[in-house]
């Protein structure tokens, strides 16, 4: 058998391994996420008017929408690290959920009697600042998911990278939602989408190359 020397070498110094457990990986991610939010709140990162904001439908739309997207994204990403997985199914669900969240936001926006011109609602200087902050806040998630992806065995690295990028991006936006004083659906749809798109693109471009196996 031509591969016998290889088989001897592989079996010869066999070390026990701890089988991958998806539940453990989710726990790690939840722990990192909880720590990040706790740190931000402890360091005074919560928006000062949060007591007022919790009475607004748009605040809850922002928070719950991003929370749901984070959950779908994380589940899709972690499950895609198994050799037997269908990440595109989860990614399609994620895309559908994004559409649904945006549609609900549009419904809330059209229900509000807003008179300000569109350009002024966007507050682009503030918006660019938001993009940078949410990208920074997505760093722990993208690092953690990237390490889990390296340890796993994704058989579609591009899809996994896309899922990791998207999940990290919406996670960063979710954490940032506690800090961001804007509840304007238009502002959130534009700037949050831009910030998420940038982080997703970075994940999609970088991760496939560093997670080869």
């Amino acid at each position, binding site marked *: 058998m031509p591969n016998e020397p290889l088989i001897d070498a592989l079996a010869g110094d066999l070390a026990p391994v*701890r089988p991958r457990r998806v539940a453990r990986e989710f726990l790690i991610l939840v722990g990192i996420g909880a720590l990040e939010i706790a740190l931000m709140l402890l360091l005074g990162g919560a928006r000062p008017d949060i007591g007022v904001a919790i009475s607004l439908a748009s605040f809850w739309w922002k928070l719950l929408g991003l929370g749901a997207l984070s959950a779908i994204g994380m589940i899709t990403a972690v499950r895609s690290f198994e050799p*037997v997985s269908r990440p595109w199914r989860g990614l399609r669900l994620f895309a559908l959920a994004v559409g649904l969240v945006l549609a609900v936001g549009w419904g809330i926006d059209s229900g509000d009697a807003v008179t300000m011109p569109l350009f002024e609602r966007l507050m682009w200087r503030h918006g660019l600042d938001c993009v940078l902050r949410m990208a920074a806040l997505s760093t722990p998630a993208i690092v953690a998911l990237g390490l889990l992806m390296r340890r796993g065995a994704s*058989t579609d690295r591009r899809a996994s990278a896309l899922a990791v990028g998207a999940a990290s991006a919406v996670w960063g936006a979710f954490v940032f939602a506690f800090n961001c004083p804007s509840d304007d659906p238009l502002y959130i749809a534009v700037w949050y989408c831009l910030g998420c798109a940038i982080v997703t693109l970075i994940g999609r471009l970088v991760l496939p190359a560093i997670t080869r196996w």
Partner: protein
Amino acid sequence: MSDDGDWGALMAAAQAGNGGAYRRLLAELDGWLTRYYARRLPSGVTQDAAQEALIAIHSKRHTYDPARPFKPWLVAIARYKWIDRLRAMARQLETELTDTLAVGDHEQGVVGAIVLAELLASLKPAQRDAVRLVKLEGLSIAEAAARTGQSESLVKVNIHRGLAKLARIVQERGDAE
């Protein structure tokens, strides 16, 4: 040959550090992988592909869940390495095209990769002819160029593009074992 359940049990034992069980498992998987790649790759590269898959199985053995069937896990890894090999073959052609247009014989070409031959139907005729003649029938680039009327560089380009497209097709459509 062991069935799926036996392989799963052997891998579970290997995860716990049982070298004897692992040696037996790898020996059986080696035969399975060699047959798998013989149907999907030119015969000159099947042995290398089987070796790479064995190493991948070894390095990712912690990702097997003993509560699940072993065969789908094995097929997923074998298929991943198959796509990897198709891409590597395409990249090799790309490098040759970049470095020089001088052409040597492609001794890796071979008959017998039945699944690969079936997939060729998805390619454009010029790509299909180039891949079939050089990678499956073992002709040199020069011979394939003479046979198809394409220039030698065009044969290489068509093989490169054809293999890259095959890798995409396999990735997208999956591969029933």
